[in-house]
């Protein structure tokens, strides 16, 4: 499943991550992180897993990471996924 509209969540402040979702085919992640060599794969995995829980399998992801922990990556991905699907009024609690 793809997304309905482009969306953004998160900030560029320390310990946060800013994620933009736009239309694409497959999950294509463009990650910009100062800890990419160490944690790049883990960050991408959290993003991909979270998106998959929402049924999103086609989206272009741009992520600018400022040292976010996994729980933050997950929270920001959930927010951006719900915005991109237009379902912010009906949060999907099962993803938690």
């Amino acid at each position, binding site marked *: 499943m793809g997304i309905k509209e482009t969306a953004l969540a998160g*900030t560029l402040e320390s310990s946060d991550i800013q994620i933009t979702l736009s239309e694409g085919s497959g999950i294509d992640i463009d990650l910009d992180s100062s800890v990419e060599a160490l944690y790049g794969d883990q960050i991408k995995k959290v993003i991909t897993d979270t998106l998959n829980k929402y049924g999103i399998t086609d989206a272009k992801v741009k992520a600018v990471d400022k040292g976010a922990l996994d729980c933050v990556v997950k929270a920001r991905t959930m927010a951006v996924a719900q915005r991109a699907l237009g379902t912010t009024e009906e949060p999907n609690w099962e993803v938690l």
Partner: protein
Amino acid sequence: MEVNEINIAIPHYRRKWQSFMEINGITEFSPNEVDTIEKTFLWDEDGDRAATGSIAGNVIKYVAVCSKYKEGGALFNKVVSYLMQQAAQMGRFHLFVFTKPKYVQSFEYVGFKKLAVSETGAILETGVPGVTEYIEKLPHFEGKNGAIVMNANPFTLGHRRLVEVASAKNDHVYVFVVKNDVSLFTYEERIELVKQGVQDLKNVTVVSGDDYIISPATFPAYFLKSDQEIGTYQARLDAILFKDQIAKPLGITTRYLGKEPYSKTTDSYNHELLGILPPEVNVEIIDRKTADDKIISATKVRQAILDDDQALLHEFLPETTMEFVKNNYPNLKEKLIEKGSK
């Protein structure tokens, strides 16, 4: 730290905002820079101004951070991400910034990618769709590729001649039409008339210049010192952007320009292109086509519409553009008169 949206049309806020910018070294507030601003935000710490930033279309401009908070860049990051969130709420996910070369790194740190950097200025972008997506969507051709950039306001026999010359000398020619709508003819009208006017030339593709062929009219320059030549700054960045981001991936080896006998601006612009594009991209300047010893130009066409000079229009315009002008005559003339009275 507290952030508020301020309305700089109100003198009280305008003074507060402008004096803060001035303290931080930005002194250019001409109407064509300031009037495009849609939203301005001001960060306060205990009543003291700490930072500001504005959104104008898809451009982030007038960003300033008080020197007290500059260290580490935390407030700068906060300002930029806040502006990006606000822009996202306005449905804008693709943003540009025009800034001094020394701030390139700061913007790169928050995910911006540089499109062009000269000694006086830099253009960066962030978000989607970016320049990579723009180039991907264009058709790609093997062989010798030429390019022409035009505003075509409107498409004349002079433009036609330029395209013909390029078409004969290349395997393929891209015609980029400037997208910014600051002209008498709208972007849709201009690109449609170009397409109709070159339809018979099979090796010519007419495409939108999108946000990457930049019209000087919308090119922010507020951060320059007044003694720096604004025209040169714009032309150089535009040339570097064309060379690196457009000509290189599309395999364009020659750019064709019309010789400019009247406008000093265009002439110096051509001069800058000559200095930057070669050797990777050759520049060929083609003499303007004349009709009865008169040099064809779109400026004269617009004047002729205003003056009801049918004879000149017939001399200067291809049938396709002539047809459009005829059908929209009262409307075009009205627009011209309106512009003149402003």
